[in-house]
């Protein structure tokens, strides 16, 4: 797909445009001074391209620390849980056996934007990481509308400090096991702990601390209201037809549990809330993988090339860079043993490069498909694309026929009612639009994850909770649903039922997790 531009400057063909300067360094060793120098140069170039970033904080860490960071979903502070230990053990094993190199970088969506540089990296790799993380990802975090709306870069570290402290306190007070159980159950529902449309409250350490006690009391009183046992006046009862609770289905299961689960203690509600907030923080990342990684990759590529053109890095450093860059953006075909889905780095990088190409050298076809873009200022167009889309809409908007051809995309229809799979579209005139919309919907989280909502609570009887799974394309739930139901029942405190509803609104399947009074589902 993308042919990497390796410019070879020979002595008889002198570079005309940017004056060539002396390389910043020759060897592969890095020093603190060198990192500063590179950082300064990269900053200058990035400014010229108009990248807008949070202030940067670069942290040099060792491989062990990298593994630690890995294990706690990349965050510098995290509460304790066995699952992070599991993550650590498996990373550790892979790393020790040499099956996996560690990622070169981890970057945190915070203000200042923290990027980790591993001490084992060469100077070239450090420069690559700085370009990729501190400018690529950083500007994406600052610019993209999802991150702007849903995450608080200023407050996340503070919030995690609060969360860690609070959970540790609960462990001391109520026992590690009880907290662990609760966290297990919350983790199982983490993907269902996000508001997809409502904007969340701002997070901040002091506010959280100050309001937490107040919230506990208030919540408890709310619960009492729902489960009120005082008999209502008779005529009132007659007048109002029994209402379902909740009146509208709720998509945020953790939120619903936090607010309405009858038996949770205040501290348990607070922990549910913490997990919910963290899930919400990561939600934009899950929706912008292609865009985010592609953007960072595009910029490390562009910035490094600029460094090279100005003569600031040597030929050998450039080769080293290209070597790892091509590894990152490799896309094996579906028949390759290395195939593991579509590589978001590859697709994202190719798309931004393609937008740049369409702006600079549009073909006839591009002019037909992207009349507004062809010939426009690529920096502005790219910036607009980065700011206003998520993976789904980004692909729907910008995937060009040329890229579909380059990737040789084809789409396969797998209907379990047919004996064979059908090739529904390939990279030809008839298929471009179809493949584009198909690929876009593939990045729609709502299609990828089963759509499950809180449907009903039996407020007058056994207090059981009914969830509904709205089937899409007759796709069934995975077996893990039984385990997850147990977790939901543990949180809810009473029996839980999950109904699968087909596209006509008929209940076709139902899963139950019965709970004896005050019993445990496990």
């Amino acid at each position, binding site marked *: 797909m993308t042919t990497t531009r390796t410019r070879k400057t020979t002595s008889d063909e002198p570079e005309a445009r940017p004056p060539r300067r002396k390389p910043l360094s020759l060897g592969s060793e890095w020093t603190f001074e060198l990192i500063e120098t590179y950082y300064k140069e990269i900053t200058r170039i990035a400014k010229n391209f108009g990248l807008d970033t949070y*202030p940067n904080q670069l942290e040099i860490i060792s491989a062990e620390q990298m593994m630690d960071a890995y294990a706690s979903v990349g965050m510098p502070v995290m509460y304790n849980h066995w699952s992070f*230990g599991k993550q*650590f*053990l498996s990373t*550790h094993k892979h790393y020790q056996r040499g099956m996996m190199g560690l990622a070169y970088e981890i970057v945190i969506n915070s203000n200042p934007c923290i990027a980790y540089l591993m001490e084992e990296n060469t100077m070239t790799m450090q420069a690559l990481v700085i370009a990729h993380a501190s400018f690529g990802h950083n500007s994406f975090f600052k610019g993209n509308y999802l991150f702007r709306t849903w995450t608080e870069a200023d407050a996340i570290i503070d919030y995690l400090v609060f969360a860690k402290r609070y959970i540790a306190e609960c462990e001391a007070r109520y026992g590690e096991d009880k907290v662990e159980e609760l966290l297990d159950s919350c983790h199982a529902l983490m993907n269902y702990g996000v508001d997809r449309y409502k904007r969340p409250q701002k997070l901040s350490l002091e506010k959280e601390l100050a309001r937490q006690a107040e919230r506990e009391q208030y919540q408890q009183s709310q619960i009492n209201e729902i489960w009120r046992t005082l008999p209502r006046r008779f005529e009132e009862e007659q007048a109002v037809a029994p209402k379902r609770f909740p009146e509208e289905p709720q998509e945020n299961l953790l939120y619903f549990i936090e607010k309405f689960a009858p038996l949770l203690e205040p501290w348990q509600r607070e922990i549910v809330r913490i997990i919910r907030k963290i899930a919400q923080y990561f939600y934009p990342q899950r929706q912008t993988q292609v865009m985010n990684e592609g953007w960072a990759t595009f910029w490390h590529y562009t910035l490094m090339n600029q460094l090279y053109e100005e003569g600031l890095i040597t030929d050998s450093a450039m080769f080293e860079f290209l070597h790892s860059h091509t590894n990152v953006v490799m896309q094996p075909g579906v028949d390759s043993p290395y195939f593991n889905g579509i590589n978001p780095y590859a697709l994202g990088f190719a798309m931004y490069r393609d937008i740049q190409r369409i702006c600079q050298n549009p073909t006839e076809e591009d002019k037909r498909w992207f009349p507004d873009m062809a010939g426009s200022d690529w920096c502005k167009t790219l910036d607009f694309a980065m700011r206003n889309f998520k993976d789904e809409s980004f692909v729907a908007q910008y995937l060009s026929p040329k890229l579909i051809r380059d990737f040789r995309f*084809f789409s396969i229809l797998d209907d379990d009612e047919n004996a064979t799979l059908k*090739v529904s579209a390939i990279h030809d005139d008839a298929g471009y639009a179809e493949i584009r919309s198909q690929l876009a919907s593939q990045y729609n989280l709502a299609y990828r994850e089963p759509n499950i909502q809180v449907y009903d609570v039996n407020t007058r009887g056994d207090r059981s909770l009914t969830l509904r799974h709205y*089937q899409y394309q007759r796709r*069934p739930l995975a077996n893990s649903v039984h385990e997850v139901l147990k977790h939901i029942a543990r949180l809810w405190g009473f029996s839980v039922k999950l109904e699968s509803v087909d596209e006509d609104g008929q209940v076709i399947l139902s899963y139950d997790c019965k709970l004896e009074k005050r019993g445990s589902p496990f």
Partner: protein
Amino acid sequence: MHHLIDRRLNGKNKSAVNRERFLKRFKSQIRDAVARSVKDRSITDIERGEKVSIPVRDVNEPTLGHAQGGVWERVFPGNKEYLRGDQIDRPEQGGGGGGSGGSGQGGGGEDDFVFELSREEFLNFFFDELELPNLVKRQLQQTITFKSIRAGFTSDGTPTNIHVVRSLRSALGRRIALSAEPMRELNEAQEDLDKLLETRSEHDPLIKAVMAQIHALKTRVANIPFIDPFDLKYSNRIKIPLPTTQAVMFCVMDVSGSMDENKKDIAKRFFILLYLFLTRIYDKIEVVFIRHHTQAYEVNEDEFFHARDTGGTVVSSALKLTRQIIEARYPSSDWNIYVAQASDGDNWDSDSPQCREILQNNLLPLLQYYAYVEITEGEPQNLWYEYEMVAQTHKEFAMRRIRDASEIWPVFRDLFRKHPEKAVA
């Protein structure tokens, strides 16, 4: 604006807590895995760390996802041959296309979750819940070991023990206390001076006097020393006596001609396990190694495991030697005494009853526990039957058979497992 921070000196074991929690949570599975793993390898490399694997379904964290089925339309890269409308046979087990979409949960994949335990952790799991039975604290008055522990702070001690924080804290307190009075006077004098200056000229003798007073007070405050020997605090350590239990283990191994290489290997592995267990779990334990064929010798550890000499079998020779050594060096009033014996059960016919007698009359009364391991694939021989009679009457006598190497660990565990109900105070 940017910062470049070197974090390498920060702790690197941030994940240690989580790792520990993981191990704690899956303790029983890991213990099983450890037991399984030692079955397949030579016991000598137990001292190294170990890879353990536990079933992935146990460590799985369930989430809601889709299974295969229904209608899926997916886009793949790298088309080579297909045209629109082509029909393709469904790949077996969904392998080709099932990568994405959370179908991993579905079924089939019974992989193991594999990870490394450090040597320390491995041995902890390995010897978990094992102990020497009937260990009694004998001769408590003989305790001569002391343990040094922290015990608050004192105001004298050696310079190495100076506690900086405490010392400076008390210096600060003293400075505040001593300077409070002069400071108050100083403030008053200052105010007086300000008042006087409004009405009088600078050369007025009264003002001179006040200024002199201020000067004196300031000097007084300045002269309060920053730190005084009086402030110094020292960490205090005291020694507390530690009750110790003295224990000795006799390892008795048959090296006669009938013990072929395989049996000897099993016996050695058993004793290596025992030795490892004892030295790890008990700080102070003495081990006596005895080899015997027709004669018994006390040998050192190295010879015990490595020397090669051979002959006929007279088991009682070893028992007699054990008895002699006990009498000479380990009075049973002071010592917890254990004996582990390994043999193939092949003995001179006339010797076996004698062994029983020595055991019953001379040895067992002195012992806490006697473990006999017979390594043989065939029928038990006379020694086994004689010992069975001992076992019926003596609770502290245990006997087991090992048929092949895979039984070493189960038998070992069985012999030394914890009996909570029999805990001796």
